[in-house]
């Protein structure tokens, strides 16, 4: 099967950042995203998944390498100072490159 190299960017953050993050994804040019309700622990303490307003989410998005670069740039610049958040990137190979 023909697969195409892409970047997978993963963002874990407090649920309050949800709208801001999905807006940012659209701005940088993502064609879609996938969101998980998660529990977490980190430097800003434990986040249980009980009150929606205090909860944690993970967002995964597949992007062309140059778009991923732009996304990480924006995350590091505008978002990290504001929100409890981590972000990382990895390499994947997708079917149907046209979608991303």
């Amino acid at each position, binding site marked *: 099967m023909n697969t195409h190299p892409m970047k997978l960017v993963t963002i874990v953050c407090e649920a309050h950042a949800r709208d801001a993050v999905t807006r940012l994804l659209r701005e940088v040019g993502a064609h879609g995203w996938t969101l998980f309700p998660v529990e977490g622990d980190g430097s800003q303490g434990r986040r249980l998944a*009980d*009150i929606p307003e205090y909860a944690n989410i993970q967002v995964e998005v597949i992007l062309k390498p140059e778009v991923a670069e732009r996304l990480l740039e924006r995350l590091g610049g505008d978002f990290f100072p504001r929100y409890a958040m981590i972000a990382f990137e990895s390499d994947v190979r997708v079917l149907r490159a046209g979608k991303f």
Partner: protein
Amino acid sequence: MTFFDALAANLLSPAVLFFVLGLVAALTKSDLKFPEALYAGLTIYLLVAIGFKGGVAINEAGLGKVWLPSLAAMALGALIPLWTYPLLRFGGKFAAVDAAAIAAHYGSVSAVTFIAATNYLKAVDQPYENYATAFLAVMESPAILVGVVLGKLATSKRGASDMTSLKAAMHEALFGRSIFLLVGALVVGALCGKRGMDKVEPFFVAPFQGVLALFLLEMGLVAGRRLGDLRKVGPFLLAFGIVMPLLHGCLGVWLGQLTGLGLGGATLLGVLASSASYIAAPAAIRMSLPDANPTYYLTASLAITFPFNIALGIPAYLAVARWLYP
């Protein structure tokens, strides 16, 4: 009934005891946990039920009776940040943005505290104006907006991005989940009136007190998890979280009397003034004043003022009202 009887009636009610049980669960690190969907379901139920009941009451009392105390409630909410902010800033030496954030929380209100208070009044057979839910509805947002503006002015790096975050806070304060449900159910209730109430009473009224007891178990868990942060907030905020609610409670009761409410309604206005938000305000503040430290405002409203009001404040405001009213 003396104040101590009234206090005992509160402390030995299922609602308060289940709240304490939740605190115990959090402190003993029991693995008890309410799933998010259950929390959401209970919240939706409580807000819709209280809103609907309030709307039916407005339908029966007529807007003529409701508008003046509602306006007073709104004004009180908007004004509270104007004295709590400087107190925190200069008395408590908090950073401007933290002072503004905390002030916003104390001007806004806690729906659960309000609901627990109506529950308590029913238990001690103290009648109250059911349309008081309208005050709850109008008091949630104004203080949040005032607090956000205070915070923005203080940090003073105003600009385009600032206006967007102010707009976001406004949208959150006006269209957020909880305010939408409350106001929406209020309107539905006002349109349905008594005839609609008859149909849904066995669901929205009869089991209400039991559902509240169960929900306070969860809120005890949530508040209890924050108790560990009490050490981080310092003695000033601790005192603030108990003294200011008492002052605001008296102020609210007095304003209620002034605007023509009965003893029960004035008590509820006192409860609203004294309570601090821990759902709507944090959501809006997190977005528009992200530099404010959540440990301060959440610990104060959730781990100090909320339990204080549930256990002691509510009977105290009723005692104040009884003393004020002839």
